[in-house]
């Protein structure tokens, strides 16, 4: 077994662009769930909208900054549309509406009626929208090796996307940290605990919930851009499973913490890669074929995460004392 190659692969996941994208999406979900108690079951829908918004406007010839703005605006409008009918109702309704709305976005994206725009189920090829982002890179062309990690500087799965992705993660963490310790964050926490109590203290609960939904959704759209830049926009790869991975990452790291989503994303992807690489090397093909190992990897991850949530429900960074109160 080639341990050094496995270790390099696994360690590479720590700062991979996908890890950054999921961390960012989980930070957005943390604003919804951890801070405000909103059950958003459609975070992948926000990401997919961001990805479409960015890719389609870039293909239409818009500059990078405008394409990013379009992506974020799409998510903001989506959040508003979802919030207007549901945020006055009890939390469960938002969960139902968001999961359905995310599916609607995906199904419209893959419908043949919009093939010219979205490429239907085959999606949009990465090369058709990557140029503006790669041109914005300050690095020269070529590859660069940092220790055992060697990636191209600008193209696709590059150092440039890693730098931007993790830069955004850091920025989002700073934002959440600032908001959590502000009076604004206090109102959100109050809403998470008991909406009516906060209402009785003169706060416009509906408006705060809307702000939270839109803010978290916009962060999700940014995550969508980071997610599709090294690959292609594939509506079917951004469906319900993606939402559930984001939830897993959030609960694993610890909801209502600043670094929980980041840590959760790193652990999630590293352990998945570890299990898959070790099994690919160690299990002979006569027992399990490569694609079966792929599936089995997800099963192991699922079981591990179930155990974690059962025995450490507050997540890795969460405060056990805080969670122990009023558990119903």
């Amino acid at each position, binding site marked *: 077994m080639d341990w050094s190659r496995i270790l390099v692969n696994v360690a590479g996941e720590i700062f991979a662009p996908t890890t950054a994208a999921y961390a960012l999406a989980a930070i957005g979900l943390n604003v919804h769930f951890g801070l405000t108690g909103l059950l958003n079951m459609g975070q992948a829908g926000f990401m997919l909208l961001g990805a479409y918004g960015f890719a389609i406007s870039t293909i239409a010839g818009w500059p990078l900054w405008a394409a990013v703005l379009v992506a974020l605006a799409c998510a903001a409008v989506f959040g508003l549309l979802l919030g207007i009918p549901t945020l006055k109702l009890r939390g469960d309704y938002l969960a139902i509406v968001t999961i359905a709305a995310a599916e609607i976005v995906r199904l419209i994206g893959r419908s043949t009626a919009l093939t010219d725009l979205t490429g239907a189920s085959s999606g949009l090829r990465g090369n058709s929208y990557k140029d503006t982002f790669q041109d914005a890179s300050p690095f020269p062309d070529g590859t660069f090796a940092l220790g055992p990690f060697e990636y191209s500087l600008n193209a696709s799965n590059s150092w440039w996307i890693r730098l931007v992705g993790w830069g955004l993660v850091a920025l989002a963490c700073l*934002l959440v940290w*600032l*908001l959590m310790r*502000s*009076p*604004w*964050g*206090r*109102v959100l*926490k*109050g809403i*998470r*605990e*008991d909406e*009516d*109590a*906060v*209402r*009785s*203290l*003169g*706060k*416009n*609960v509906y408006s705060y919930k809307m*702000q939270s939904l839109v*803010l978290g959704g916009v962060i999700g759209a940014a995550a969508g851009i980071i997610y599709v830049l090294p690959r292609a926009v594939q509506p079917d790869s951004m469906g319900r499973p993606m939402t559930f991975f984001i939830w897993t990452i959030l609960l694993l790291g610890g909801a209502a913490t600043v670094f929980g989503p980041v840590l959760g994303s790193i652990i999630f992807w590293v352990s998945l890669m570890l299990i898959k690489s070790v099994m690919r090397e160690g299990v002979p093909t006569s027992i399990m074929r490569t694609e079966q190992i792929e599936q089995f990897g997800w099963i192991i991850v699922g079981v591990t995460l179930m155990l974690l949530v059962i025995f450490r429900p507050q997540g890795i960074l969460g405060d056990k*004392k*805080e*969670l122990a*109160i*009023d558990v119903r």
Partner: protein
Amino acid sequence: MSADLPRGHVPPHVPHATTATGKDRVTADLSHVAHTPGVHKPDAIVVADGVTRHFGGMTAVDVGHLEVQRGAITALIGPNGAGKTTLFNLLTGFDKPSTGTWSFEGRSLSGVSAARVARSGMVRTFQLTKALSRMTVIENMRLGAAQQPGENLLTALVPPLWKAREKEITEQAEELLVRFKLDAKRDDFAGSLSGGQRKLLEMARALMSNPTMVMLDEPMAGVNPALTQSLLGHIQALREDGTTVLFVEHDMHMVRHISDWVVVMAEGKIVAEGPPEDVMADQAVIDAYLGAHHDTDLGDDALLEDGIQRLEAEEAGEVTDAFADTGSTTTTQEGTR
């Protein structure tokens, strides 16, 4: 007699008032007011007209006219299901009435959202205490304060813009916590407090916005006797500061002890109004709600035996009536009368 005076009219001769606020003043003001349901008060802070609320075919609240005197402690009493809490919910915007209008300090509050009612100075507490469990006591208190610039998403990102106000409200919160004897719990989670302490916290939190009127829904339920004493003190202190208090309560000793005015509800209607001594002597109120022994200690053995004998006699005679009529609470009470 003063029932005929126009609303807002202050009697020219105020016999006992020595201060601008407080018990003397309120007693003097209310001494001229007739003891009839829906009577006009000299200085009403809340005026409700024709407020009804139907749940399906059931009428939970049907208040023709109600005025609450400014600066007074007004108790709202009545049997379970009389519509007291529903009236609270309507007045504070937590529920929408079927018909009716009401005003607070002269401004109409019909159809105004709960948050805006609270911002206009009428703050309530809940029958089932709503402490924000996974927040510390001091954070609960800070949340109660009004006019916080940091509650805006954009200013929240720049601490210098809200630190000064934060310091102010923290000081105010700490003062209140000392008054309510919760200062030792400052940094504990509200969820770790006892039931009585949560009641205190909820009341203290409501006072953070310096309301002109507080509405307390059963403030004494589940609070031990020693704590009840201090809660009573707090409520009376509110009156001395000029705050209007309206509260729902089943503890008649408390009602008698601190309230200036008592409003009795039954089956959604206001059936009696007046100072506590008068209302509690009213035969209709005794029949509908208090019961004949409300003045005596129910732990008294002699009374208990007497009561059992009487109950046995009544049961033998009236059991058929009670089962024939499956009406509302008061009907059954009338049945056992």
